């Protein structure tokens, strides 16, 4: 019996040498451990032995059985690991340098700049308003203190319509409506598209965007105006901006100013951006003319306020380094796709 056991053991060890697949391993498992397997046979033969021999041989057979099982299990996981490895080896290795087109589209550069400004002003408690593009002469002129025959009506080459209306020449056309809607006190900005009848070239467009802002209260002062302009522009350019005010004439403000910023490119020493002057004229502003408040039903003795107008198109040109204003309305996706979402 002992010899038989040794024989089976030797045979197993020999056969294991040549195994190279899971199927073969399974066959061997059946051949040794299966119902008719060699080790199972040995167990069956035990009954012919005496008690002592039986115990001894039984132990040996069990030992062998355990060895064989462990061996097969180890071999099996070894084979599986090799198989998994082989599969990984065969898997495609991708070229991450291949180009992938982003699924996102793009927003118009004006939208991007406009949102940025709206966010800044909303954070300072300003309402964001919208307005029409086709307006009455009253809204565009009379309501903002530009009476008939005023030279300002010539200065702005207005598009007149055959129904008697005009295309709004400035966002100030919304002032009356918005002042009436909110009354005093009020803080609001209103971006919008404006139109002036002029020939188009690299720096002139007949269709462009402005953003107007107003703040009306009991004690709104020139000092407040300068503060808000400086704060807002510092946010826009993401650095501390130096501003200066010059007198400027606009019928809807008194006093009226031209606001210049110290050139953000050269810091005021002079460069092509500021035409060597160190300052860039950026934004007309002023204290709202008492007549404008009165026409909007606001007591101009009790309330004062400031207003400003920012050229969104111009700001977008400065921000993105656009030299030709015609890009904005070109509809040319090769230009516009460069402006992303933010």
């Amino acid at each position: 019996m002992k010899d038989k056991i040794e024989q089976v053991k030797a045979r197993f060890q020999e056969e294991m040498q040549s195994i190279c697949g899971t199927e073969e391993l399974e066959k061997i498992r059946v051949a040794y451990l299966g119902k008719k397997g060699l080790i199972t046979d040995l167990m069956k033969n035990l009954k012919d032995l005496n008690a002592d021999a039986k115990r001894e041989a039984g132990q040996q057979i069990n030992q062998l059985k355990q060895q064989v099982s462990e061996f097969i299990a180890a071999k099996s996981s070894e084979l599986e690991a090799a198989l998994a490895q082989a599969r990984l080896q065969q898997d495609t290795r991708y070229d991450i340098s291949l180009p992938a087109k982003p699924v996102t589209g793009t927003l118009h550069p004006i939208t991007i700049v406009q949102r940025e400004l709206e966010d800044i002003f909303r954070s300072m408690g300003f309402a964001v308003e919208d307005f029409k593009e086709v307006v009455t002469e009253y809204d565009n002129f009379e309501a903002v203190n530009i009476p008939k025959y005023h030279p300002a009506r010539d200065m702005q080459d207005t598009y007149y319509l055959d129904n008697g209306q005009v295309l709004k020449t400035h966002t100030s056309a919304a002032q009356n409506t918005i002042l009436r809607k909110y009354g005093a006190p009020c803080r609001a900005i209103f971006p919008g598209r404006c139109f002036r009848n002029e020939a188009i070239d690299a720096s002139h467009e007949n269709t462009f965007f402005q953003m107007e802002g107003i703040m009306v209260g009991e004690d709104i002062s020139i000092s407040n105006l300068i503060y808000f302009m400086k704060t807002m522009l510092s946010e826009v350019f993401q650095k501390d901006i130096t501003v200066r005010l010059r007198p400027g004439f606009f019928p809807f403000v008194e006093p009226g100013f031209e606001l210049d910023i110290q050139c953000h490119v050269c810091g005021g020493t002079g460069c092509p951006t500021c035409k060597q002057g160190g300052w860039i004229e950026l934004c007309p502003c002023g204290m709202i003319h008492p007549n404008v408040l009165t026409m909007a039903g606001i007591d101009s003795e009790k309330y004062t306020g400031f207003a400003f107008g920012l050229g969104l198109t111009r700001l977008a040109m400065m921000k993105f380094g656009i030299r030709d204003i015609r890009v904005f309305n070109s509809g040319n996706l090769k230009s516009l796709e460069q402006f992303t979402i933010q």
Partner: protein
Amino acid sequence: MKLSINWIRDFVNLDGIEIDTLIQKFTLATAEVEEIQHVGRDIQNVVVGKIVSMEKHPNSKKLHLLKVDGGDAIYDVVCGAPNVAVGIKVPFAKEGGQVGGMKIERRPVAGYESCGMCCSEKEIGISDDHSGLMILPEDSPVGTDIKKLYEIEDTIFEVDNKSLTNRPDLWGHYGIAREIAALAGRPLQEVQKVDTGAYESLPAVPIAAENQEHLLRYSAMAVENISVKISPVNMRIRLYRCGMRAINLLADLTNYIMLEMGQPMHAFDYQRVSQIEVGNFPQSIQFETLDGKVREVHPETLMIKSKGTPVAIAGIMGGYESEITEETTSFLLESANFDAVNVRKSSSYLGLRTDASMRYEKTLDPEMTIPAIQRYLSLLFSIDPGVRVISSLSDLYIRRYPKIQIEFDKAYVDRYTGIDISVGQIEDTLTRLGFGVERRGDAFTVQVPSWRATKDVSIKADIIEEITRIYGYDNFAIQTATCAVAPMAREPRKVLIDELKTLLALSYGSHEVHTYLWNDARKLKEIGLEAEGFVRLKNSVSPDIDLLRCDLTPALLCTVEKNRSYAPEFSIFEIGSVVAGIDKEGLAKEERRLSVVFYGRRTEEEALLMKAKGFVEGIASAFYNEKFSYYSMTEAPKPWMHPYNAFQISFGQTLLGLMGIVHPQVTDKIDKKASIIAVELNVDELSKIAKMLPQYREPSKFPSVTADLSYLIASEVPYSAFQSMVETLALPFLESYELVGIYQDPAWKKQKSVTIRFVFCSQERTLESEEVQALVNRLIEAGEKMGAQVKDN
């Protein structure tokens, strides 16, 4: 407008003041200075030279060999000027000197050495005259630096005219000097004038106003015995530096006074004009202006006439016939004031904008006419002492501006400025600017000077500007406002527009574009469409672009056409205004629209259409938690739409917009290989939809059972028929259903198989298979009633 610092120095002592800094201050307090030029610095070592001898150059017809007395020595000079002559005195640039950036050196000219240069007026930078040498007066001392004799050096600064639009007082040097004096804290000198009282006994110039509306004032005076024809050099230099050409003394003086006092003047030859009528002609007339051009003058244009003959266009330009000539010995001087609007209109009718009209347009002070004449005479007397006044100072003053008095107190100034400016400073500033100031404690009563009272200063806020600009905005302490904090409501349409843009750009890869508010008829024609709209521009540069658009999509289709080589698949969108009609009051019905165009060469038309519908569905569910309805239209509502694939999008009774396949004829013009789908939505209507808050429902804990049913049915039956069928059945436990797919076998002939997955589930228990089967059977029966063969997969 160009201004001369020398001229300003006539009225303000600027000694010891840094001129560039002062001009900088002027920019910040008054008006923008665009350019500063220091002229004459490039003229060095130019003296009075006398030509003592002259010989012809042996080898040249043009050149002469001169000996020039430069005061310190006699110089050999080769000179090519045509007017060279022995005995004349000329500006002589000595060796080592400089003329207009050119160094004067000893150098050979055509074989002879030349040790200096005799100069023309142009060469020493005082006019454009380069026809010959400048001939100096005989009494000019030889060897004297030319800069000691004439105002060669000056600082010229140019003020942006636009920034003077509302300051009629700043259109002459004296007005500017007043500002400069206030800024520099120096006194302002009076202008030297002649007392015209002495001529009161002389006969008046007859002046008649036929038009009392557009003439405010006409002052005139007649003078004879003129002998000097050419203006003094310094006067000509100033005119030249300020951008005017010297003509003759009498005309130059009118220009000089205009540049000095801002009052336009005109000199008529007295032989032609000895009396004045101001009025209009009933019909258009042909009139030759002094520039030699014959112009058609509109009946609304105010004219100066003499005995019925037109002699000048009021406030714009004089006539050729009556202008001052070489022979003129007596003249009539006009100093008048005309209605600003009328001058501006006339000037634009005529297409003629002159230095005079530019000033009248600004609403000049009519008080200026008399001082201007008195100043003119004062200058004329000093230049041509033999002249004789032959009329009294004749003056027809029709319309005066009311005197303006403004009252305010320091508290008002404090509130408006937000800073503390002392009463002393307020008083001082206003006084220096010519205001009459009366102060009692903190209260002010201010008289506005006539030159600021025509339109510029009329209310308290105007006074604030005067005080603050001289105080200096750079000196302001700045501070934030104190105001109540309250939540700011957001304008719903504005919010929606932002959300739509983000949705399209982020989730649909769409690109935002902007197109014009008007149709471009030419571009539309290229893709087979016509311009449509309700309102036209009256003053468009071209009839092709005068009709405001009533839809957004056509312009976007043009944009797609422009970009067809951009990519095989892309989409663009715009949110913009259209004029969709005219309301009862005749006003434009402006609507804000969204148009999205999907273009694809690779995607099938149906898939592209479903992408578009998916976008609209996304708005309905994500923004409103609602569902929109879609209707196939029986005919195309818009020319750009496919007649059998045009769909209406609505919510309840509200029409939200249109969606459809672009008409194949239009698509073919853009790209024969592409499919194009467009969606146009009314953003105004969309923004009125109320948002439904989602009502939460716990997902069932029990397993669901699915059943896939395939309905073989006639091809033309729409999917909505199944939707209605399911809704009508209202089966219990039917949690959801969805379209799995539609299969069309060519062999079936006009039939399709529609597979729908039904999901059953209970909130309380696991469903028995028998009860689910019973429900499925009802779906099968209902399908059979619709005429379908149903297969339970």
